[in-house]
């Protein structure tokens, strides 16, 4: 039963990723696109963790942690760029 | 003691996170965690501003539990508002006058506000006396401000003793 539930959850998260993609393409301003990208990072962490559960391997965790950190840093850098016009002042 | 461990709380967090990351309590890992937890705070001391120290750890633990519960409630509330009719939403900005101007309590308050029911902290004034907050559904301005001050600012002020 767990396998089936994991697949359903993968479908839900995949749908969420598609909605984020819609906002990423549609998004009237740059900020909407950054927000969509940030949400995409979070959803892909969930997808990787689900994949780890599906294959029963705890190794996927490291990838999820890396995505979490890169996601935060890149969002912060992009916001900084919009605020100051420069990342490294 | 003070010279060896300039930031005991940071030391504790580093120690725990290192063990969590390695997911083991083997003697070697504990030794490595202890070394890192002592060395990193010592090396980064010049980078840190002085913060008010935590006076009441029990109150802080209770605050964290209350915050976690509020996060769950706020998520359900926001989910209902997001899925419901959008015409009924009345977004708005409010200003919260702050009683404390220390960096750490204001940061913690702003983070708590961002994580809880329908509010996101937008900006804080330069002298840290006013916090600008965006509310997803603003029905009663005075009531929202009073709730935030009573529920989050009061325990934060109390636990840092300022």
């Amino acid at each position, binding site marked *: 039963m767990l396998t089936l539930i994991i697949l359903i959850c993968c479908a839900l998260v995949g749908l969420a990723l598609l909605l984020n993609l819609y906002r990423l393409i549609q998004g009237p301003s740059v900020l909407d696109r950054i927000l969509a990208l940030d949400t995409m990072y979070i959803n892909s962490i969930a997808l990787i963790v689900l994949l780890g559960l599906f294959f029963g391997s705890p190794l996927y965790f490291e990838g999820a*942690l890396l995505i979490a950190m890169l996601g935060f840093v890149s969002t912060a850098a992009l916001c900084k760029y919009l605020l100051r016009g420069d990342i490294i002042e | 003691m003070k010279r060896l461990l300039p930031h005991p709380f940071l030391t504790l967090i580093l120690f725990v996170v290192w063990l969590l990351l390695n997911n083991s309590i083997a003697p070697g890992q504990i030794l490595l965690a202890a070394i890192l937890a002592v060395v990193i705070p010592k090396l980064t001391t010049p980078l840190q501003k002085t913060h008010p120290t935590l006076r009441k750890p029990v109150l802080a633990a209770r605050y964290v539990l209350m915050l976690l519960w509020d996060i769950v409630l706020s998520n359900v509330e926001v989910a209902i508002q*997001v899925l419901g009719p*959008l015409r009924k939403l009345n977004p708005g900005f409010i200003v919260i006058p702050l009683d404390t101007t220390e960096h750490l309590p204001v940061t913690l308050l702003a983070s708590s506000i961002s994580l809880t029911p329908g509010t996101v902290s937008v900006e804080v004034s330069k002298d840290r006396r006013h916090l600008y907050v965006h509310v997803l559904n603003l029905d009663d301005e005075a009531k929202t401000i009073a709730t935030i001050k009573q529920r989050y600012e009061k325990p934060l002020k109390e636990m840092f003793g300022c």
Partner: protein
Amino acid sequence: MNAVTEWIVVALLLLGSIFLLVGSIGLARLPDFFTRLHAPTKASTLGIGGVLIASCIYFSFDQNGLSVKELVITLFLLITAPITAHMLAKAALHQDSPPLERTRNADLTATAKDRENPTQ
């Protein structure tokens, strides 16, 4: 793994995924940037928390020994979500992203942008 833990894992996984989906629906559906900011910062935090705790429980019972390292990601996301939201909101003020027309006290954005105290 016994039936009870399996049910708990299933419930947490479904709850987490549904909240992630709700957060993304909010992102796609809400009318202006400031309201859009609410959905991902909140719903996604709880959603990812649910999925990660489910994984935590699953591997604790599946493998021998406790597996708690998923809590690190949960903690990390709980700390960084408000910071991301704050930086995005700050950038939105700086870019003069227009709030929705019926937003109350929309004039506050002018003083908030310059980090001044509100004029009253």
